[in-house]
């Protein structure tokens, strides 16, 4: 009752701080994962009520089995042409990433972020959308641009912040933006794009348009308030949006348990918002394609959003500023049981008889050359050389694009800076 002054029988409380299964020095351990066999998960009708998906948030939609066969109801039954295109795009992303990572290591730019092991979540999903659907990516979906044939040279110019950079060196490397490619400007502030995507989708619905939006967020970033705003608004207005969570199981040094995944899944959030939810093998390009297409079909019919957790693994460091070996086992990436998305799709094409090792080798050579050639061309327009006043951009541009028209104080400051540089050059 209310008035006992003492606390009989009240045990001491203690704080629970989640810890991953293994740390440096331990062997990587993924035995706690419960991975259902490919093809074992049911596929509800895309027009079914949201609650009919709510058992799927605790399992894993998988299509490609151990031998590379596509099995079960989620097989999207793509033609070999499309499969090869997806394979090629994923491979190109990986070659590009490796190249730019090296460019950063060579001091040609300030920063880089790879998407190694996560190529399917961007590339396969993009191929399941219409070309003019809008995407709101994080910094790890360069695959969207590549799947939509954004010029490699321009991507590199952005990474170099050079004269060819379409956004004038304003942003950190990899923070691309392209309206023509339905690729919203990447923000360095995590999660902000998620509710913006919902707003964009609401606008499309308000306008009687037919284009939908697809948003991405990382597992760690789901903790931001923006995630909640996005899910709430998407649910309330049944916005035509696909809400992807890329669960690569790590933020920077903290694992997904610190983001709230210890006793549930990220897909399970869908239940609380009353929206459709799917949990998908993110290293299985066919499962990613199928789930995205399912969600797109659903939302095009005005049935509202789907939350898709794409379960994958961040194979490399968080960025060029990060060394994962100090917080997780060395062998973690190699022990990850869901394999490599490129290798798995290649195996599938081989199994289909629609691919062979010679073509694979030829494609690898071709992509390597494409990327090298692009790099050469990009570097002609300069790289980010950080310790000189030979700026890669016209310094006056610094004051442009703050507003549509430059107000007086920016004009004054622009003049001040031009004078400063003249003084410095003397």
């Amino acid at each position, binding site marked *: 009752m209310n008035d006992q002054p003492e606390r009989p029988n009240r045990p001491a409380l203690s704080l629970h701080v989640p810890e991953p299964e293994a740390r440096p020095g331990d062997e990587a351990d993924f035995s706690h994962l419960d991975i259902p066999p490919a093809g074992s998960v049911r596929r509800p009708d895309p027009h079914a009520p949201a609650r009919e998906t709510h058992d799927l948030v605790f399992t894993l939609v998988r299509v490609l089995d151990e031998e590379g066969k596509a099995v079960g109801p989620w097989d999207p039954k793509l033609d070999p042409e499309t499969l090869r295109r997806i394979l090629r795009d994923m491979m190109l992303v990986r070659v590009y990433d490796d190249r730019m990572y090296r460019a950063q290591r060579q001091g040609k730019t300030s920063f880089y972020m790879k998407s190694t092991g996560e190529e399917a979540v961007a590339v396969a999903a993009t191929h399941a959308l219409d070309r003019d659907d809008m995407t709101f990516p994080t910094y790890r979906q360069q695959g969207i641009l590549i799947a939509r044939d954004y010029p490699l040279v321009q991507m590199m110019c952005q990474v170099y912040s050079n004269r060819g950079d379409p956004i004038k060196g304003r942003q950190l490397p990899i923070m691309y*933006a392209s309206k023509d490619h339905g690729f919203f400007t990447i923000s360095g*502030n995590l999660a902000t794009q998620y509710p*913006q995507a919902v*707003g964009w989708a609401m606008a499309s619905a308000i*306008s009687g348009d037919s284009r939908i939006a697809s948003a991405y967020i990382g597992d760690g970033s789901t903790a931001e308030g923006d995630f909640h705003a996005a899910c709430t*608004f998407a649910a*309330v207005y049944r916005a035509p949006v696909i809400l992807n969570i890329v669960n690569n199981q790590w933020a920077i040094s903290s694992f997904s348990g610190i983001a709230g995944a210890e006793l549930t899944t990220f897909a399970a959030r869908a239940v609380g918002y009353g929206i459709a939810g799917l949990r998908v093998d993110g290293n299985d390009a066919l499962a990613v394609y199928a789930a995205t297409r399912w969600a797109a079909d659903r939302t095009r019919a005005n049935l509202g959003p789907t939350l898709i957790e794409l379960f994958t693994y961040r194979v490399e460091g968080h960025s060029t500023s990060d060394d994962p070996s100090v917080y997780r086992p060395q062998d973690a990436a190699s022990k990850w049981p869901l394999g490599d998305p490129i290798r798995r799709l290649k195996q599938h094409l081989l199994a289909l008889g629609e691919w062979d090792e010679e073509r694979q080798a030829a494609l690898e050579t071709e992509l390597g050359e494409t990327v090298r050639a692009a790099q050469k061309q990009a570097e002609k327009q300069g790289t980010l050389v950080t310790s000189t006043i030979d700026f890669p951009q016209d310094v006056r541009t610094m004051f442009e694009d703050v507003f549509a028209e430059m107000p*007086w*104080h920016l004009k004054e400051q622009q003049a001040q800076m031009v004078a400063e540089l003249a003084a410095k050059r003397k």
Partner: protein
Amino acid sequence: MTVMNMIQALNSAHDVMMERDKRVVALGEDVGYFGGVFRVTEGLQRKYGASRAFDTPISENGIVAAAIGMAAYGLRPVAEIQFADYIYPAFDQLVSEAARVRYRTASEWSLPLTIRSPYGGGIFGGQTHSQSPEALFAHVAGLKTVIPSNPYDAKGLLIAAIEDDDPVLFFEPKRIYNGPFDGFFDRPVTPWAKHPQAEVPDGHYTVPIGKAAVVREGGDLTILAYGTMVHVVLATVAAEGVDAEVIDLRTILPVDIETIEASVRKTGRCVVVHEATRTGGFGAELSALVQERCFYHLEAPVQRATGFDTPYPHSLEWAYFPGPVRIGTAIRKALED
């Protein structure tokens, strides 16, 4: 021309713009069916339908984020934050996103977005219905901040804000929604009907963003104010019997430096007035600008008459509010020597 109070004028701005431009939509807490807790969006849902004027979840962050997404799509959302005191949950979306998207994309995207919010004290609203946060936004590159002081300007500036291709914060002095309160809280408040600026054209017109208004010409000193304080200043000037030039800034950022400079060069003395807390308020910027640009014309230090550096107190509201005594004192100090 119709005589309107500020609420009616703001409502009319919405109406005119929603009629003219299908891209204009109104959203916010209680904005739809009910028409807003101050009734600024009254009737819009009935007239334009629920998908152009609608209620939102109680998430200021979500409201601004959704409005950004809508603006990125090509709409011109007008979002209401119910009280300016509740804008802080949306601060990140405003500062990191709304203010930056044009820059980040070298103008490939722009965000024609208006955030309206009633601000300021004088209504016994306590700590969370009284604040004046305009200075926080003036410090953020990429945001415009507008504050009207009368029905005519309110409508014309709101239309200009909606038509502006950049994000505009539009703070509405709620104390004068219904009448031009002059700071003498023991006198009856006159309704807008008696005020010349309550004659409002029914149709479309704009008052340009970035242009101040000289609301009283004078030679003794220059007083810079905006929002409710314009009226308090005018009443104080009358009570003190000084020949002040009173400037209603109307836009905080970009501020109309020409009008300010011309006036201070003429008068040689300056007082800056706002409701917001003093330290780091927009008055500091005005004071700094004036002394930087008119130093050799100044005959006395620029004075600030502002809210105190405390949270907004409920019961001591009239001791907190910068009224005729505080402003009068600043005027007299500025006129010393």
